């Protein structure tokens, strides 16, 4: 099977990954049932993870690993959780993808890997203050298309 990322993209990603700091783990959730983009998504994140030894991928199936999927609140496939790596396993910051991160979303994925790796949101003080005092959960879903 041919590569999804061409040499040029791979080179650009490698350059961006020079900024990687702490290790990051991509948790991939697939499904055997009706998941048109699962194979490509897994291949994509594996190709990305190959570029840096600070990145790794763990593969789950929402049916076979139902408890894990529920624990991470993942139901849509392909699903990705971009997690930091702690001593006792992945540290989940709540960074998720539903669907293949291709096209525009590919650069978001790269930015997110850098974000989680740096472990700093980069947000302004006002936003940080508000979020620090949240008493109830906030759930955001950003609908996007690849093109």
């Amino acid at each position: 099977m041919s590569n999804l990322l061409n040499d040029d993209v791979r080179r650009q990603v490698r350059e961006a990954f020079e900024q990687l700091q702490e290790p990051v783990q991509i948790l991939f959730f697939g499904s055997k049932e009706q998941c048109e983009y699962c194979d490509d998504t897994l291949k994509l994140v594996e190709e990305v993870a190959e570029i840096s030894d600070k990145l790794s991928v763990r593969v789950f199936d929402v049916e076979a690993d139902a408890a894990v999927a529920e624990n991470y609140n993942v139901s849509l496939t392909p699903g990705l959780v971009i997690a930091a790596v702690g001593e006792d396993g992945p540290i989940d910051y709540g960074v998720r993808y539903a669907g293949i991160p291709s096209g525009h979303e590919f650069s978001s994925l790269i930015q997110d890997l850098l974000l989680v790796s740096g472990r700093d949101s980069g947000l302004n003080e006002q936003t940080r203050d508000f979020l620090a005092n949240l008493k109830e959960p906030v759930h955001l879903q950003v609908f996007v298309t690849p093109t």
Partner: protein
Amino acid sequence: MLAHQMAMESEMVQAEMVEATEFPDLSNQYHIMGVPDTVINFGKSKMVGAVPEGQLLAEIMKVMA
């Protein structure tokens, strides 16, 4: 990206990028017509377009108030 930055900042925030065309039922449920479209707390509010940090913050504040 902004939504993910917020998730990164707070344990109370979960943020998901949803590829709209792959999940038509969900997109229909929230009446997604254009992208990006940010759905806050399962439809409590919705912001179409790429919104700046202050604006998304203000909207979340309103939803949480």
